[in-house]
């Protein structure tokens, strides 16, 4: 029952959803709460097949509200709990994750983006960036990783559990339909064998001793009576978030020093961006790329330093400017010109990016 799901390094050729389930197992996730929605379903399918073999649990709830709130309950009980959703399910998930934000609960949510608004397509988009980074009433104090391939899906799901439990902010891995459904090579590993220590979990409720006798009771709420009381609480959260951001923020960049144009993309679109960068450089064009790996907190300082002079920033995304909005917000005041390549709800190919860059640099 309790043997490790993965020992040594295992090469595999599998779908992203399968990768997520294996990553959660490897990360010692103890319980998944979920509700079916495409394209994340197979995370639950694979989890429910593997979980009993390793003493892990699963509950299928009646909707995403309950999936989110039971996840919140699992975390309150001190378990490494997670859920997964997409699209309209992500919309509903914002209510429980807003509570997680208020109570500083280390929930982990995998989002496999689909088209929007509303039901739209069940296939693919990058249109859940707004919702995942700043959804819910509040200030968007959460951590959002945007992986671009299956290996990263595995790595960042493991990392998400650690970031969540270390800093106690709700954490998301923002995948998408392509990542969810396509097969790709991946190396599965046991985090411990790579020196990755899983941050220990701790119960919020049900700690040893009798409350009021041996210890203070844990009294958790997200309601405050007066404005000043909430203001005080939030100041601490903001301070913690800011302190954490420096440690958590991740990005990748290449060829930016002498670039006339920097291509910005995240998630699977970054794969096209990177290929385009290689092709264009081979042709002698002064092009670089910048890829935010954490969309929230955003690598603002790092991008700001690059958004100088009369450089152009070409933003490629499968949405109508959701990434661009994050970029503009964070580099406000910089002189670089922003050039959009928006394809909401559809994929972006290397060829499209190359063509766009050539058109812009002509």
């Amino acid at each position, binding site marked *: 029952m309790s043997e490790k799901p993965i020992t040594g390094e295992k090469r595999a050729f599998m779908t992203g959803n399968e990768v997520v389930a294996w990553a959660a197992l490897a990360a010692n996730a*103890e*319980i998944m*709460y979920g509700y079916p929605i495409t394209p994340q379903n197979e995370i639950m399918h694979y989890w429910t097949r593997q979980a009993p073999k390793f003493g892990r*649990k699963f*509950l299928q*709830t*009646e*909707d995403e*509200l*309950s999936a989110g*709130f*039971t*996840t*919140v*309950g*699992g975390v*309150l*009980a*001190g*378990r490494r*709990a997670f859920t997964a959703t997409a699209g309209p399910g992500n919309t509903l998930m914002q*209510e*429980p994750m807003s*509570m997680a934000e208020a109570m500083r609960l280390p929930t982990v949510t995998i989002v496999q983006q689909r088209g929007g608004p509303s039901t739209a397509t069940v296939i693919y988009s990058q249109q859940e960036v707004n919702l995942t980074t700043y959804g819910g009433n509040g200030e968007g104090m959460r951590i959002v990783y945007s992986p671009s391939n299956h290996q990263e899906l595995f790595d960042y799901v493991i990392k998400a559990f650690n970031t969540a439990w270390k800093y106690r902010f709700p954490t998301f891995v923002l995948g998408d339909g392509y990542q969810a459904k396509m097969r790709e090579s991946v190396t599965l590993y046991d985090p411990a064998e790579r020196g990755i220590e899983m941050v220990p979990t701790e*119960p*919020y*409720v*049900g*700690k040893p*001793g*009798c*409350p*009021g*006798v041996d210890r203070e*009771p*844990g*009294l*958790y*709420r*997200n*309601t405050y009576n007066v404005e000043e009381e909430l203001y005080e609480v939030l100041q601490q959260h903001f301070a913690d978030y800011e302190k954490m951001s420096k440690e958590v923020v991740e990005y990748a960049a290449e060829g930016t020093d002498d670039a006339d144009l920097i291509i910005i993309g995240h998630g699977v679109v970054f794969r096209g961006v990177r290929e385009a960068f290689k092709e264009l450089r081979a042709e002698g064009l002064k092009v670089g790329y910048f890829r935010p790996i954490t969309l929230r907190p955003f690598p603002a300082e790092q991008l700001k330093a690059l958004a100088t002079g009369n450089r152009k920033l070409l933003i490629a995304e499968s949405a109508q400017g959701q990434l661009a909005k994050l970029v503009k917000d964070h580099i406000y005041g910089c002189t670089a010109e922003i050039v959009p390549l928006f394809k909401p709800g559809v994929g972006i190919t290397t060829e499209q990016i190359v063509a766009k860059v050539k058109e812009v640099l002509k």
Partner: protein
Amino acid sequence: MSVTPQPAMPKCWRVESKPHKFCPGCGHGLVLKCLGEAIDELGIQDRVVFGCDIGCSLLSWDFFNCDSVQTHHGRTTPVMTGIKRANPDLICIAYMGDGGGYAIGVGGIVNAAARNEKVTVILANNTLYAMTGGQMSPTTMPGQKVETAPYGRDPEATGMPTQGPEMIAAITGAGAYVARGTMANLRQLKSYIKKALQNQIEGNGFSFVEALSACPTNWRTNAEKTWEFIEKEMPKYYKVGELKNPFEAKKEAQQNG
């Protein structure tokens, strides 16, 4: 020097948060007193996780010396379910009003009941949304005047009052405990709550107690009229008693060999 006699409080009540924040005449204090005494008598204070909803019930977030979680409107049942599933040793109590249980949270409660989740739900039914100013709820009675039914609830337009325990009794499996008590009979209400907790301790199934409760503030009643409403009006639609009792069922089964 005169000494004011202090009313006896359940041991698990949190003295620091008393006097409590409910309006004078509100039923919550009495229902929570029954719950407190039941927790004391069962000796489970160290295992209880108390969850409360939005609405007046949220004012109980620091009511007990028990670990407590206050959540969103209607979400207390899933939060307690999540905790119970993650740590079955804990005794999880979801406390809510009729809006939280029968309207916005009905999906949560119905499905938790259908799955026979081993949690205890205690629902105070005061026939309206109290904290938001007295709007109609699923349990507002025909003809009853509330803010969003100022001429009285018209069943033709808005349906008949939700019969919560009856619904839950119908959808729960074996091992579920379901009852409706009233703040007009606290001894009985306490015995129901105690059985609902005992049922969870034994791991039999879902446990549910609706407590008929008062909202003199939004009912705009004085003490006399408040009691008249509880004792004469509410029982017209809400029958007090046990609807499902696994302890009795077990006893009967034993007697019948």
